[in-house]
């Protein structure tokens, strides 16, 4: 049971083509909606039934999000897809764009139909040139086939989609920063409320969903909300793409049912490379709190199981940390990332990320002070919950978790001016 939804075409030669997608049931859902004139409420209810939760990281129920929009409001309403994929460790949306772009396009059109939308934008991170070209080519194929643009399949419903390329900024994965960026500005998050469903792109009602969420929509409509929900487990409907990386034999993207044991996922990914042992796992991208390896081996890959262990499923980016890795050094790099990517708008994040990084960096380099551990505890608590967007929390959570589980490695660095691991 793998690759049943977003990566459905993967076994085909040139899976990204319209003909490949259609051979796997592609655009059947859209055709059905338009010919049978299925109501917007029915579509939204089906998505609610499916249990689909936002695949970008926050896990917010997609159907519920769609229901927030005032469908009868006059004027433009937008569907925006978040293909900014920047959470370190995540590389699944790239594969959807490269190998099954039509699933995303069909999902965006259906979403547009369901909310009374007038146009869609797909925000693709600027570095993803190959995926961008695939997506553009797929848009053209869809337009040529009458599936996209004016009067789709003669139904009277019109909806077009455009790609927007980013310029290299992690924070633009935050939905309101992404909107600012499409509007031609610095990507600095907006205050919420108002939420995008009320006041989004160009000040118009807007729904923003992750690539994987939208690419799951066609099969949910085609095969039913229950079908999708039953692929997964309670509270975590469907299957999910996991990006797994580290010193393992077969790193990559695996689309598997929610609730699959982590140990099975690790096995699918070929297990640990020879000579490496599992030490710890970051289960949902670098902002997700780290989980010790032995504890992780007991968990299943779904929202509740990972949350109970004190972390989060996030984007499904599973970073395998082996026994040759120094946790201080890894956290030094992770904290540098958030320092580098803070947009500078909120003081706790702008100052706090730099502060955390400088303290961790000096511990890593043998200049740690006895009071540094307490200092880090204190700084993380002063960032969390005190910023406009989640980047502050994303920066603080890994610091708190690394120290919680691996305090002795940090203490060893401070006391002995060297590393516990590998005699560095």
């Amino acid at each position, binding site marked *: 049971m793998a690759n049943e939804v977003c990566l459905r075409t993967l076994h085909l030669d040139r899976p990204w083509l319209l003909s490949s997608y259609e051979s796997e049931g592609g655009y059947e859902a859209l055709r059905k909606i338009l010919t049978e004139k299925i109501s917007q409420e029915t579509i939204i209810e089906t998505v609610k039934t499916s249990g689909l939760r936002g695949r970008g990281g926050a896990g917010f129920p997609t159907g519920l999000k769609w229901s927030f929009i005032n469908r009868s409001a006059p004027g433009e309403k937008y569907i925006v897809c978040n293909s900014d994929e920047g959470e*370190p460790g995540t590389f699944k949306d790239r594969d959807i764009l490269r190998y099954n772009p039509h699933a995303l396009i069909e999902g965006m059109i259906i979403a547009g139909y369901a909310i009374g939308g007038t146009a869609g934008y797909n925000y693709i991170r*600027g570095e993803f*040139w190959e995926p961008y070209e695939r997506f553009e080519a797929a848009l053209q194929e869809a337009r040529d086939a009458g599936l996209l643009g004016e009067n789709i399949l003669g139904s009277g419903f019109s909806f077009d989609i455009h790609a927007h390329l980013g*310029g290299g900024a992690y924070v633009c994965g935050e939905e309101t920063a992404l909107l600012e960026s499409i509007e*031609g500005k610095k*990507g600095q998050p907006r205050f919420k409320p108002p939420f995008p469903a009320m006041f989004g792109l160009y000040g118009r009602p807007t729904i923003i969903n992750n690539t994987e969420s939208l690419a799951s929509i066609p099969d949910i409509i085609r095969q039913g909300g229950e079908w999708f929900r039953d692929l997964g487990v309670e509270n975590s409907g469907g299957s999910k793409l996991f990006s797994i*990386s*580290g010193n393992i034999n077969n*790193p990559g993207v695996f689309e598997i049912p929610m609730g699959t044991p982590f140990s099975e996922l690790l096995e699918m990914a070929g297990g640990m490379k020879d000579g490496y042992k599992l030490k710890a796992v970051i289960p949902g991208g670098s902002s997700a709190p780290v989980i010790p390896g032995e504890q992780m081996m007991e968990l299943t890959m779904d929202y509740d199981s990972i949350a109970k262990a004190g972390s989060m499923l996030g984007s499904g980016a599973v970073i395998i940390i082996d026994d040759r890795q120094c946790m201080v050094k890894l956290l030094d790099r992770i904290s540098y990332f958030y320092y*580098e990517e803070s947009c500078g708008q909120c003081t706790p994040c702008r100052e706090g990320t730099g502060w955390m990084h400088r303290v961790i960096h000096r511990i890593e380099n043998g200049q740690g002070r006895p009071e540094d551990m307490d200092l880090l505890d204190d700084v993380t608590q002063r960032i969390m919950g005190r910023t406009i967007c989640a980047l502050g929390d994303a920066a603080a959570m890994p610091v708190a978790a690394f120290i919680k589980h691996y305090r002795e490695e940090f203490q060893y660095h401070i006391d002995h001016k060297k590393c516990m691991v590998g005699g560095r």
Partner: protein
Amino acid sequence: MSLRCEPWARTDKREDKENLFSPEIRAEIDQWVAKYPDEWKQSAVMAALRIVQDDNGGYLTEELMDRVADYLDMPRIAVYEVATFYSMYELSEVGQHKICVCTNVSCMICGSENIVEHLEKRLGIKLGETTEDGKFTLKEVECLGACGGAPMFQIGKQYYENLTPELVDSILDSLEQDNGE
């Protein structure tokens, strides 16, 4: 609470836009402008900056940013804000090939330090520097979303994954032989 969402205002709009860029560049920018609502030409600023940067050997100058501002009827400061905020815009000269090496956590676990060390040794420069012949710039970048192929780097529009020192050598050898573009 009053909510506003308006494009930047510019009163002294430039009329002779055909003098700002070549017809090819203008056509390319116009393709992007057409994607957005008529009053939101500024949505094309990121694309316009990328297009003129590529055309200028990989970096932006103040003059080019000013032209982009004039072309899109934006205040110049608004264009500088964008150009300085996003990491893919270069504000000083770079080499013919910009090597963007990921050193983030997955790449680090899989040995990106060895790749950086190898690159620095072979090119005789450090991260953030350009070779004297202007051929290569070495840039450290954040996660590029290809961790399944770690360690990796990007040169131009191309990703190179599962790097080893030998593979790095063969990639650089072929780029060195290529004098064109």
